[in-house]
């Protein structure tokens, strides 16, 4: 594996992509979970398919189309749910399917051979190009810098929005920033696990980290580490077994999460029983 990383540029790209996606997972996954925006993130990821299809139809880099659609749907969900009586969840459901439908339509209308969409739908870490690494690095840098700049205000907003508003903080600005950061992060993750599996990569590492940490800073760092480990193990399995990398990463991380959850629950139960016996 190490030889492959040293000798093949596609393996070096895959490694770099895994690291970048892990950083994004730590930050964006934590924000989405704590702000209860996971379902919306799923909608954004799927809506981006419309933009990817549009990119193929018009003939520009599909991922920029995906980014445009993702940010657009995120802003639309946010504004409509605030300014109308429509619930964000309903709007998410509509844009989820509408984006996919548009993507299918645009690709069908694209002249020539129909492009292979599996890498966008299910991810393919082994096919990440140099160009993709550049935009992934750029998007990750934007996310990290913005998050670090606003870290303390962001934490107050995520934990207790009402308090932040009553204290006079500009919560609308923070909301706008979050609703733009999430789609940018999703576009980074799509290259690794694809549109359909993005939500799992956003949630599983953060959920595991939350089992061990009582500070959000640690959750972000630990979930990034978990995400990197899962991505690298998925990459290794995919390389040696010649099976889809996105599916490997998600199946492996889900199994790890369930095992950790079961072990932790078992330990807590045993500890509780010992305490009860001691009190008796």
């Amino acid at each position, binding site marked *: 594996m190490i030889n492959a990383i040293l000798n093949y540029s596609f393996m070096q790209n895959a490694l770099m992509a895994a690291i970048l996606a892990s950083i994004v997972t730590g930050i964006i996954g934590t924000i989405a979970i704590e702000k209860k925006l996971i379902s919306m993130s799923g909608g954004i990821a799927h809506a981006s398919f419309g933009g990817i299809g549009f990119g193929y139809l018009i003939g520009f880099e599909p991922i920029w189309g995906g980014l445009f659609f993702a940010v657009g749907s995120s802003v639309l969900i946010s504004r409509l749910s605030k300014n109308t009586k429509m619930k964000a969840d309903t709007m998410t459901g509509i844009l989820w399917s509408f984006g996919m439908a548009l993507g299918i339509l645009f690709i069908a209308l694209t002249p020539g051979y129909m492009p292979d969409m599996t890498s966008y739908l299910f991810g393919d870490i082994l096919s990440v190009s140099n160009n993709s690494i550049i935009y992934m690095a750029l998007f990750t840098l934007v996310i990290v810098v913005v998050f670090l700049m606003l870290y*303390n205000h962001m934490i107050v907003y995520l*934990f207790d929005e009402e*308090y932040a508003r009553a204290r006079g*903080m500009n919560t609308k600005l*923070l909301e706008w920033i979050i609703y733009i950061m999430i789609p940018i992060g999703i576009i980074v993750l799509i290259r690794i696990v694809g549109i359909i599996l993005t939500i799992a990569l956003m949630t599983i590492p953060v959920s595991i980290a939350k089992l061990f940490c009582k500070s*959000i800073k640690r959750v972000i760092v630990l979930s990034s580490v978990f995400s990197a480990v899962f991505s690298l193990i998925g990459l290794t399995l995919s390389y040696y077994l010649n099976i889809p990398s996105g599916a490997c990463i998600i199946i492996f991380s889900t199994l790890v999460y369930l095992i950790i959850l079961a072990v932790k629950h078992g330990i807590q139960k045993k500890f509780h029983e010992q305490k009860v016996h001691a009190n008796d």
Partner: protein
Amino acid sequence: MKNRSVIDFDNVRFCYDEVCAIRNINFSIEENTITSIIGPNGGGKSTILKLLSGLLSPDRGTVSVNEKYTIGYVSQISDFDLSFPITVLDMVLSGTLCRQIKPFCRYKSIQVDKAHDSLKRVGLGGHGNRGINQLSGGELKRAVIARVLASDADIIVLDEPDSSLDVDAARDLYGVLSDLKRDKTILIASHHLNEVLDISDQVLYVMSDARMFRSPGEVKKMLGGGIIL
């Protein structure tokens, strides 16, 4: 000598769509007093506190707060996501954070000291490194009050601080609030009448409109008739 008025509600009305929570509310609150806001569910207690804290704007009338005073709002305990990974100290520290969103706004040691002092003031010194999910309901409520103290708010607004607390925890909490009256103006919405009336200087009875009682004794007399809130 009469204290000066810090909060004024003048003919205030607020409606949620077509349902009016409060109508034509008029009252004034003086500084360094404890005012309890009582009334039945849906009577408009929380709406008054939210209007006061700037979380809602009145449909009609004016809510004025003396511009020299800052408000610290303590929401109902059920509003908190206890799974949020944050330590007690970090939560209290967030009370000292600058309001204006500036890049790289970091905590200084003086703010950390203030957070520790606030925790000690509410009897939670030494609990700073715990996660918020490791506190009891009463401790969490006191920690939230510590956050308001750390923010140097002059007016503390508490929405049902005693909900889901047992009798002892509620008594501890009201002890803490009573001690704060020396330098804070406090408004408390509550259903626990005995405890809250014991520490109040005045009572606002809200049921869509509002009646101000200058002494808790008057309210106790009125409620002696068997009114259930």
